[in-house]
């Protein structure tokens, strides 16, 4: 077939994609129609964003990525990749591991066969913690086993709680206080879709002392994805712990799928604290949705000036690919950095809140 014929076929797919956009713009900001659309954007917001996009493109006309978003080019086995680094002093405090240890030892329901009712009855009988329970013949062995685990490493304790209570349970979240904070890997990614397309940015935060370092692997072109994924994996040792917001359902499986796409080694099976569920349980009655930006505004005292809805990221990245103007990438990178930073703040806030609540009850 001639090139012209092939071009016609290629264009047909493009036309078909354009016939069903990923989001819809709601005319006149009609709030009644917002609810029905999964990816709806108010017309006023959309106009502001279009202005922003045009301004950014004007401002960064002729810039390279290196100039607009300063970072460094590295190379690994998979090729070149681009890394943007920043550091953020971060004051935080967690409940102490000793306190958490005591708290866990008071939780009789960690023993298989003991639920809310039994636990209450034992407490009325003066059996207040696991050490007391061991003296009961029936639970001697099982309570002893739990106590052994609680004396084991933080990793074992966390895995035990995840298995016994479920990873989304607030008590499971509290085991995060037992770990050294430098093990945490705060992860957030930006992608070209919900599934099966390249990711374009991986944001990764980790502590060195009281400083949160954020590295962002930005794809200057799609061909850098494998190298960026590989560089990301290099920063995840086997004892590291993921912290994410909805990362159990989205970010981590997405990264795993992309690793599989390139035939790269899978991620190690490490602990993962997904903050979505503990946050939702805590605040669901106080806010209309549980998006990270909403929580920031209401509970964490941060406010983003202009934020880019995720649904627009593919379109803005496509604009960058077409024009090589890095302008559209500026808010994407900024948004991602803020997300990673918020993750760290949110973790410590949730630890505090849930510790207070569970201790009282």
């Amino acid at each position, binding site marked *: 077939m001639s090139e012209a*014929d092939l071009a016609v*076929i290629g264009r047909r797919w493009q036309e078909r*994609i354009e016939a069903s956009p*990923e989001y819809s713009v709601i005319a006149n900001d009609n709030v009644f129609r917002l609810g029905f659309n999964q990816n709806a954007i108010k017309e006023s917001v959309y106009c502001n964003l279009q202005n922003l996009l045009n301004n950014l493109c004007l401002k960064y006309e002729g810039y390279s990525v290196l100039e607009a978003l300063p970072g460094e080019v590295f190379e690994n086995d998979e090729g070149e990749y681009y890394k943007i680094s920043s550091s953020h002093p971060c004051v935080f405090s967690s409940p102490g591991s000793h306190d958490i240890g005591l708290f866990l030892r008071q939780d009789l329901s960690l023993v298989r066969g003991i639920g809310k009712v039994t636990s209450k009855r034992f407490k009325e009988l003066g059996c207040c913690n696991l050490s007391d329970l061991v003296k009961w013949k029936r639970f001697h062995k099982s309570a002893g086993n739990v106590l052994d685990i609680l004396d084991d490493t933080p990793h074992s304790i966390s895995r035990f709680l995840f298995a016994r209570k479920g990873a989304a349970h607030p008590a499971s979240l509290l085991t995060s206080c037992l770990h050294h904070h430098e093990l945490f890997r705060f992860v957030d990614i930006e992608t070209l879709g919900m599934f099966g397309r390249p990711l374009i940015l991986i944001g990764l935060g980790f502590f060195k002392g009281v400083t949160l370092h954020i590295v962002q692997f930005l794809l200057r072109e799609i061909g850098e994805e494998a190298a960026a994924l590989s560089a990301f994996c290099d920063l995840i040792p086997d004892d590291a712990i993921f912290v994410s917001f909805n990362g159990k359902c989205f970010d981590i499986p997405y990264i795993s799928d992309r690793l599989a796409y390139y035939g790269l080694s899978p991620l190690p099976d490490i602990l993962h604290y997904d903050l979505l569920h503990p946050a939702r349980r805590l605040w669901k009655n106080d806010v209309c949705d549980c998006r990270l930006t909403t929580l920031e505004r209401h509970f964490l005292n941060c406010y983003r000036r202009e934020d880019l809805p995720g649904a627009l990221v593919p379109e803005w990245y496509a604009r960058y690919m077409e024009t090589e103007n890095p302008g559209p990438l500026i808010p994407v990178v900024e948004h991602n950095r803020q997300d990673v930073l918020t993750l760290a703040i949110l973790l410590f806030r949730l630890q505090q809140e849930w510790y207070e609540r569970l201790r009282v009850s």
Partner: protein
Amino acid sequence: MSVSAFLELILENRRFSDYVAHIHHTPSKQADIVPCPESLPPGVKRWLDQKNIGLYSHQAEAVNTVFSGDDVILCTPTASGKTLSFFLPFLSIRHIDPDATALAIYPAKALTRDQLRSIQDLEKETGIRVDPAIYDGDTPQHDRPLIRSQAGMVLTNPYEIHQILPWHRQWSSFFSRLRYIILDETHQYRGVFGSSMALLIRRLLRICGHYGSSPQFFLSSATLANPALFAEQLCGRKMRVIDSSGAPAGDRYFILYNPYQERAVPRSVYSESARLLAALVDSGLQSLCFTGSRRMTELVSVWTKNALFDISPGKAGSVAAYRAGYLPSERQELEKNLKIGKIRGLVSTNALELGIDIGSLDAVIMTGYPGTMMSVWQQAGRAGRSTSDALVLLIAMQNPIDQFFMRHPEGFFARSHEHAIIDIKNPYVLSGQLLCASSELPVRPEEDNTWFGDDISGHLKSLQSNGIVAGSARGYIYTGRKRASELVSLSQISDTWTVESGKKVIETLSLRQACREAHPGAVLHHQGMRYLIEGWDDERHRIKAINDDPGYYTKVNQQISVRILDRMAIRKVSSGDLVLGRVEVSECYFGYRKILDEKVLSSEPLSLNPVTFDTISVWIEFSPLKPSLVSKDRDLAGSLHGAEHSLIAMMPYHVLCDRWDLGGLSSASFPESDGKPVIFIYDGYEGGIGLSERAYKIYEDLCRSTEKMVHECRCSNGCPACIQSPKCGSDNQPLDKEGCIEVLGSITVPEQNY
């Protein structure tokens, strides 16, 4: 009453015997039982011994072939023990490698349900576990992870494979252990769908290769003319063909029954079917009647019941209808009742032609030639328990092919099976499947040409320039803004339009179907209801309909133009040049007629954009050197037009297709061929589906049988049984039957006669 007694009954009664065109007798056949193959695991041998099950020769051959590492395509009749044929080799594989997995792909969901039961029964009987499970759109989310990690055999359909391939990470364990792929009813995978399927299989194999496995194939199919070539095209591997059945068979009587028989009162095809079915049921013979449509299935079952009420009312309750569209539970109930003999007469669409296990029956009635010899034998195969006699009746319709068969029974029974055509180079299919592949693993033209062929670079570049894939050192990476498996559908490559009445979706159509049947102003029939089409929403591809019956029906006026793009091959025939090439077809729908009782009430204008597509065509350019193509008193345009219609009508006789898969155009003076008279026949699908290529090779045979058919038709000026076409856009005007015969004759007459 026995089959032979019933046969006598019919032949003695002139009400029926007048219409019998031919009776074909196939003598009974002994079972060919062979010793149990050595390669079977001891547990299986023990079980076969204990149950005293002897293997038919083809089953043993299948076991040995798979054991020796070869791929198999099995083409044996219905009810020849296919399940055991593919299941036993897998037990041998599992015996050596207990972790080995198998993937069984069926063209329809109903078949997986049916097969799962059979496999579970075999598991129970042999005591060897393979942990089979169905994985398709109906599998609950919470069951899926366990099936992926635990199942030894997954039963599914092509649509599901298309969906799960991008999720291969979750299937990595299953795919890395995959040793055996079963493809059942593979003759379904032909034409455009088959081409998509062949590329889907290559996507699957590419993923398997990625996880280090290279599974063996076991294909089953209805009998085909080209099983070896077909299997190789479908799966990309050379396969051993096993086509001689060792299963026993009783005497078989095949009756060709013609309601339009010469010198007899013409009868209606469907009422004859109902009468014969009633007679069969009344005689105690369990029977199945196939009809061509859902509506006729319902009607024939009602008429059969009514006929039975007159002769033996007690039996009217044992007749039922079966078709797609019934609830699965309802269908299973019917299948069960048929199997246990509670239902004595069932009227069905071709839904039952697929290998659903309903046991075997005494008699089968086919209402009209089902379109392919493959279907004939599939449907006929439903009759005949292993040793008792069987009766098959083909009741002819008034169309050219059916009537041709009635006049040439010897040709009918000697006919070879169809060629199943697959074209993995179809650019539209290939482009879409490459796009999907690039979302599963990067596509590297220099390596992946082993799967997708050598022409993929151009396609990938075209996808890249449209921003759908991105090039990289690792290959082409999918970046389209929609999920690839949603963007590309497996069964159709053109856009779909949806007809809606209020909020209810009535049906989906391709653009060309929509132009023909659901243009603004059209009266659309659906499930016995009539809808008036109000208008089109071009942007959303929606067609608005209201439930209204204006009394008349509508017929669209269509004008076709053809532009020649490329002549790929040319050869001489006696009256000119036969050309195979690429053409651009424009179908312009410029108006429609409102018709009541075959009278045109009015003609209405229509303004739709012409539908344009590229396809493959075979055309003949008649030589201008010949004094004249037809005699002086004949109309050239009408002769060519008639020849075009009748050639298209006879195409399904030679090439596996339906006349609706083809289009045609004739002209007494075609400008692009220097004003020569021409007849075009083209594939009615974008990119072509290989029909014209076949026709190019057998054009003389096609002309010979077409000439014979037209010549033998009893009508004087052309009728629906010869040169009239049901889909003619110019209302079968002009037509010239005598001239048509002359034109067809000129193509096949040996050169020296001129």
